[in-house]
């Protein structure tokens, strides 16, 4: 979850998000280098009182500063395309969870075993014990290190289901089933918020995933069926 003054991406909870973060950091590094270089040249030129009266043609430098950006772009494009195709891979999921957006709460259905259904409302703010606008009454238990298929839909208007630390976001559209696939590689609590304007309480329908061991998950399933 984001903490106060959080400027960058949240810590990743899935291998794909980890790769996305690495790509972001790699590209940001190149961009900062370029910006610093350009900024330095600009300032230097602006503060320089000398004038070069014979500044003409310059074929060599023109070639260099055409080829060099092309090479830099290739260095950015290669990891980008690798990641693009990696995100698109088909996965053999072990668990399917359905989530339906309502005004203004999410409901979850686990139908692989015996049917488990529950609603998840935002918890009222209790200053000592919970996070304002982020905590819910019923969390979503998800087994660790298991490929999860999440089917997202809505019952009334368009909502959007997202968890930033998993790099997952998909619209919840009435009459349509959107599939996202992810794998949690560490235990913990991961937060998200509805990401498509859906009425008065759009800001007040958060999502909270609880990543637990496979055994704990199976215990939860059998105790809730």
């Amino acid at each position, binding site marked *: 979850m984001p903490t106060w003054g959080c400027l960058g991406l949240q810590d990743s909870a899935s291998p794909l998000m980890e790769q996305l973060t690495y790509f972001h950091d790699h590209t940001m590094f190149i961009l900062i280098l370029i910006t610093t270089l350009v900024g330095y040249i600009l300032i230097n030129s602006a503060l320089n009182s000398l004038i070069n009266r014979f500044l003409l043609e310059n074929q060599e430098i023109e070639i260099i500063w055409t080829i060099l950006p092309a090479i830099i772009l290739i260095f950015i494009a290669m990891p980008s395309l690798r990641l693009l195709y990696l995100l698109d891979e088909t996965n053999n999921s072990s668990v399917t969870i*359905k989530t339906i957006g309502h005004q203004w709460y999410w409901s979850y259905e686990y139908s*692989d075993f015996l049917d488990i259904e529950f609603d998840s409302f935002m918890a009222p703010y209790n200053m000592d014990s919970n996070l304002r606008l982020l905590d819910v009454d019923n969390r979503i238990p998800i087994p660790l290190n298991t490929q999860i298929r999440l089917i997202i839909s809505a019952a009334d208007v368009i909502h959007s289901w997202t968890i930033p630390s998993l790099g997952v976001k998909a619209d919840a559209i009435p009459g349509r*089933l959107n*599939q996202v696939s992810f794998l949690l590689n560490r235990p913990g609590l991961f937060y998200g918020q509805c990401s498509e304007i859906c009425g008065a309480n759009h800001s007040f329908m958060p999502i909270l995933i609880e990543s637990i061991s496979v055994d704990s998950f*199976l215990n939860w399933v059998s105790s809730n069926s």
Partner: protein
Amino acid sequence: VCAVRQVALCQLVHTTAILFTMSSAIMASNAKLETAPFDPRFPNQNQTKYCYQSFVDYHRCQKIKGEDYEPCNYFKKVFSSICPNAWIENWNDQLESGIFPGKI
């Protein structure tokens, strides 16, 4: 866990016990987690057709092969996992009333 005496042997037994129970637990746990498989007919994000097609195929299968034909339950497993329960209830009501729009 292991007392001061005979630490090495105790630790060896303890570690082996943990590994054995862990591996059998992991094997047993993963064996229980099974869901609708990836269907190459529906490789993309929109899985609406997968849900609808499985539902329709289940009822067509039952109509052709009879109510007791076990392999039809594959379709039932798929649509139960993929389709929202509200949709399934709605379609079942429509089937009972004879107003289901699809061809069974």
